[in-house]
């Protein structure tokens, strides 16, 4: 039986199609988020299905997650990204006890029970520092592509401290640093340290290991290392971390049987 998970995030939409019987991912895909979110997700779903040689009518159930989940009218159920990320991590890494998810507009830390259920979670309030949006703002300021930001920060061993805890103020701080001739690599690395510090505070003092890192930001080189340093424990980056939420949604769609 075929199930689909759709993660309608703030920056991208992700789809995972799962063969529930064999419990294997048949196909998956990512597309940039846009204005008509339901249409966008529908087109992506059809594209992914085609890759797997399937059609819509083959799908037994669809679960939507992510901040745009309620807009996905063709999904049977919506489940929050917190529960879905936990389920996705659990599928790939069954002994995980903490999940750190950093997406486009939020970051969250989830603590799991030994049986994989979410015990509790924290999520950033009204603030974008410590999210993917922070990295986008920085990349724009430094005039580099987002996917080059990690490589850039890898060029220095001397990150500059970024003290502002707000994206808007941090941007002003970065403008000042650039004006005073600070190397972009040091700024990029400094931003990673600042982001990691924020997430570490959210995770609190008693982090249970193993820790798994998910979300689009986990694809940026260097962030996982900065996080591990800030938290004081090793961090495992999930396999295809951008898809973890959609995978979890597909798993939960199958679990609904």
């Amino acid at each position, binding site marked *: 039986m075929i199930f689909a998970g759709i993660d309608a995030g703030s920056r991208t939409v992700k789809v995972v199609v799962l063969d529930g019987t064999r419990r294997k991912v048949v196909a998956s895909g990512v597309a940039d988020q846009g204005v008509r979110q339901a249409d966008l997700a529908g087109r992506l779903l059809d594209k992914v299905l085609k890759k797997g040689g399937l059609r819509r009518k083959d799908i037994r159930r669809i679960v939507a997650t992510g*901040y745009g989940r309620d807009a996905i009218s063709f999904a049977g159920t919506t489940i929050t990204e917190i*529960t879905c990320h936990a389920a996705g991590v659990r599928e790939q890494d069954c002994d995980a006890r903490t999940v750190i998810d950093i997406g486009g507009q*939020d970051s969250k830390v989830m603590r799991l029970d030994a*049986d994989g259920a979410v015990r*509790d*979670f924290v*999520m950033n*309030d009204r603030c974008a520092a410590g999210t993917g949006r922070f990295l986008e703002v920085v990349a724009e300021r430094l005039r580099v592509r987002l996917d080059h930001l990690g490589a850039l920060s890898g060029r220095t061993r001397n990150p500059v401290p970024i003290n502002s805890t707000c994206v808007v103020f941090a941007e002003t701080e970065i403008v000042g640093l650039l004006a005073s001739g600070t190397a972009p690599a040091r700024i990029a690395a400094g931003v990673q340290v600042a982001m990691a510090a924020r997430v570490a505070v959210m995770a609190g003092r008693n982090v249970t290991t193993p820790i798994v890192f998910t979300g689009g930001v986990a694809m940026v080189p260097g962030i996982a290392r900065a996080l591990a340093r800030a938290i004081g424990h090793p961090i495992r980056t999930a396999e295809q971390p951008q898809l973890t939420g959609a995978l979890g949604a597909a798993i939960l769609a199958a679990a609904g049987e």
Partner: protein
Amino acid sequence: MRSQRSQRHAVDGPLVWFGGMVEHCLDHARARIKRGGHVVGMACEYTPRELIMAAGGVPVCLCGGDADMIPAAEEMLPSNLCPLIKSTFGYSVRRENPFLEMAELVVAETTCDGKKKMYELMAESRPVHVMELPQKPGDQDAMRHWVRELHKLKEVLEERFKKRITGSGLRKAIALMNRERGLRRDLAGLMKAEVPPITGLELLGMKSIISCIPSDLAQYRRALKVLPGRILKPSARSRTRVLLTGVPIPHGAERVVGLIENSGGLVVCQENCTGLKPILEDVDAAAPDPMLAIAGKYFHLPCSVMTRNDRRLDSLHELVRDFRPQCVVEVIWQACLTYDVESFRVKRLAGELGLPYLRIETDYSPSDSARIETRVQALFETVRGRYKS
């Protein structure tokens, strides 16, 4: 036999009544002024209403819940301040709270630094008397100081309203306030039921910013008769029972309670100042010195300004036992320092009691509603644990 519709109407009568709360309070205040009464503004549950009532005063809660009042306040106050303080002050600046405009005196207190400093600015245009609230609840000197503060307030009221506050006047006010506290306690107690008959939002709406209005008391009594057995849709049984704690939720700022209840929750217990906190304990009506009895009741309030505020944790413990919530949600107004810091202890207690805990820091603007909904829904998913893979 009455039709179903009129039965429904009879059951919902008290809820409908409190929907017109502000108008009723205006009518009441105007009528009292006509008969020589004095409107007195207040913005904290530590304010001893009995004293004001015994002086012929009509205490009115001024706590602002309207976001539209905030920009005017921010011309003088920092933007990074609690929205309740800003909204209250905005009403004062814009002269748009009719009760404040009627008030002959504002009885202020030092329950938080933000309010304390805001009152200084308010006092530039209105008569304000500040009571200094000591903050060590277990300390005998602190209690003596509080009693002195009550006597000072008594003198201020007597002087201003040219009326002596007598022992019998105080006892009458104590009896009246105790009656209202008792009725509201019983009403809140309906939520202990396996299948509560009203929502937390409805309960929150069933009170007035002026205490002891006779028609309100009659409606409380009526509500206690007609509400049990009322059926909620969706069914109360299918919802997650929530204990709400943290800051007060003033009239107009009920957004978070609505978000919780629209996401599948039912707020069965409100520990905060707009809920059970101020009505859990009565004033000892039989005490030989009514001033001491009043001082004692109010000094026991477990506000986060107190140190140590162990009483709040004890109270939460008991409320969890009585109301059987499945999770705890703490609401903190942005920049409310004392509740913010104390939330760590509440979270720890929730953990000890095996209850999932969610802390929501927000203000009066709806910009974070979608984010709050996601967190609340995730909390309920956690409680139900039904999505285990």
